């Protein structure tokens, strides 16, 4: 092994040590979590979208500046004689250049005016939209903090065998999201189901083929009729009604005919008891009843809709086949 190879191996091992150390200290609480969270929020607050308005403003200013055409032609030249000739030509043709430049400048101004109007109009729409969002979404920050603090509900091991058998004949990849239970994922794979995970959890996962993004974002970029099946869990316990319905609609669109589908839903009483009254009251979302999921799937003409309750009566697995 030469120096470069030995260094590369050494550096890789150092990075692994740094990662392990960072993870260990983070898990053991040695890092000041409150400080880090406030730092993170501070940075995120100012990063992408806050400057959007200014970005448009700056762009228009740039266009306005570029709209002015200078009729004074540069006369730089390698030789003094060339400079003199250019200067003379500029003097002689100045009336012509000025006439053309004035017309182009006028055109530029006429183009930038509607841009200003459009910008004002967009800003007005933004303001009205913000006012509307404030009216409908007063506790957004409090809810976001609550959601970040909620640990996921464990998936009952009773469902493993049922799911493996239900998904066994799926004619394509099966999506598990947005809660990825490592045991369930590995069990399904070991049973021959081609499963991959999607999770919005920021916790680092060492599992192979688990995408770290929100389920909705992932589904928005997926092609129609590309999934052989799906197991919907996680967001069924905390997302708003609209988000849950949207996730289901996208999952149905992205699934092939005859796809095997499943929804794992925690019971409302268990959910309330585990979260406590504050989170249960302030959270925007709550689990839908198993009967509601059954109704929603039947409404999509799903076949063989079956509901199985876990042995501890805390959750229900609903399985179905798409037409």
């Amino acid at each position, binding site marked *: 092994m030469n120096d470069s190879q030995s260094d590369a191996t050494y*550096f890789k091992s150092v*990075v692994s040590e740094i*990662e392990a150390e960072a993870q260990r200290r983070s898990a053991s609480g040695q890092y000041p979590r409150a400080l880090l969270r406030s730092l993170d929020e*501070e940075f995120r607050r100012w990063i992408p979208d806050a400057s*959007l308005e200014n970005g448009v403003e700056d762009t228009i200013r740039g266009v306005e500046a570029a709209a002015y055409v200078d009729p004074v032609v540069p006369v730089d030249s390698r030789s003094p004689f060339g400079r003199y000739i250019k200067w003379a030509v500029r003097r002689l043709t100045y009336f012509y250049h000025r006439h053309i430049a004035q017309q182009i400048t006028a055109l530029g101004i006429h183009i930038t005016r509607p841009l200003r109007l459009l910008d004002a109009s967009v800003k007005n729409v933004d303001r009205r939209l913000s006012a509307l969002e404030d009216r409908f979404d007063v506790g957004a920050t409090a809810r976001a903090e609550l959601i970040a603090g909620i640990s996921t509900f464990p998936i009952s091991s009773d469902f493993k065998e049922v799911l493996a058998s239900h998904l066994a004949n799926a004619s394509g990849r099966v999506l598990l999201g947005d809660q990825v239970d490592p045991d369930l994922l590995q069990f399904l794979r070991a049973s021959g189901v081609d499963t991959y995970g999607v999770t919005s959890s920021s916790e680092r996962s060492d599992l192979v083929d688990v995408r770290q993004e929100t389920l909705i974002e992932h589904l928005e970029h997926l092609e129609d009729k590309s999934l052989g099946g799906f197991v919907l869990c996680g967001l069924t316990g905390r997302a708003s009604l609209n988000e849950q319905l949207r996730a289901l609609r996208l999952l149905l669109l992205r699934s092939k005919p005859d796809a095997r589908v499943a929804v794992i839903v925690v019971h409302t009483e268990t959910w309330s008891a585990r979260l406590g009254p504050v989170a249960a009251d302030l959270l925007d979302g709550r689990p839908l009843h198993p009967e509601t999921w059954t109704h929603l799937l039947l409404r999509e003409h799903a076949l063989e809709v079956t509901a199985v309750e876990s042995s501890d009566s805390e959750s229900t697995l609903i399985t179905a086949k798409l037409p």
Partner: protein
Amino acid sequence: MTSVHQLVPTISPRDAVGNHTLALQRVLRGLGFESEIFSMFRHPDLMTKTHYVDQLPPDADAVIYQLSIGSPVADRWARHPGKKIANYHNITPISLVGKWDGLLAAEVQLGRDQMARYANICDHAICDSDFNKAELDALGYPSTETVPVLFDISNAKADKGTLTRLLRNRRGTQVLFVGRIAPNKAHHDLVAAVRTLRDVHGDEAHLHIVGTDGPPGYRRVVDTIVSHAGMRDHVTFHGSITQEELVAHYQAADVFCCLSDHEGFCVPVIEAMHHGLPVVAYDCAAVGETVSGGGLLLREKNSLLVAAALHRVSTDVQLAGRLQDAGRRRAADFNRTVTEIRFRDSLSELVDSQ
């Protein structure tokens, strides 16, 4: 005489693509070709050395287009009847610039569009990195190869005044980054990492940022973040500086940290390695292959991890020493003479084959 000219949207002497274009002109002339540079926007210092785009001779045997942004110049190149060669330096994805600079967003969008449209008319493409090459291959470019960008690693002597000032004021780890203040270079993440290094590891670290301002909106946000993070006294923006001052920065710093979200090549990383400065970089786009085994490559760039890496490099003397040695070896791979020979071989073969 065979003529191989270059087309470039904008040419400026203090710009990586501009310097590369001028260096390539010398290589082409060294091969015995007639070679001029044609551009739409020319820096005043280069007026006499370059020509306006409409003066490109229609009978030129080959035209090399320096592709790094969208421009009407690309259409002129595409219409040229002779051999068409692209030299691709990468175009920043619109997702990284769109929020900050609308005009730039329009230009990169046009650039990506042109890049896709001209796949079938381009005879050969030379790319700075395998990352760039992969992008063109995916678009169906029929013939591509990787040859690094031509640049001179500065062996200028460090500016004594700057070096003295930097060494006198140092307390804690001195972290350096060199690059235009643009969103794809993620200066905000650097500020977060150094703030975390200070708070979590009790290091009186200081972040030195060298480079000109990019989109004004982004610079404003970085300034706001610096203020809100209480880092005003711990971050210094040095702006555009001379080669001598830059060498002083490389010599005075403890670690070079690059957290860019997108780089098509990244010359400053190589300069840092050449000057024996340990490199910690986020493995993204072409950064990984540029650093290769010459530095610490992080798979993530959350501030805790980056701070931990910076802390480790600044406290582990053995690691820092090995990084310095490995960095120097890696930088030597980009030796100007070697790169020139590769360009010479590639271009002479291409032009001869017509």
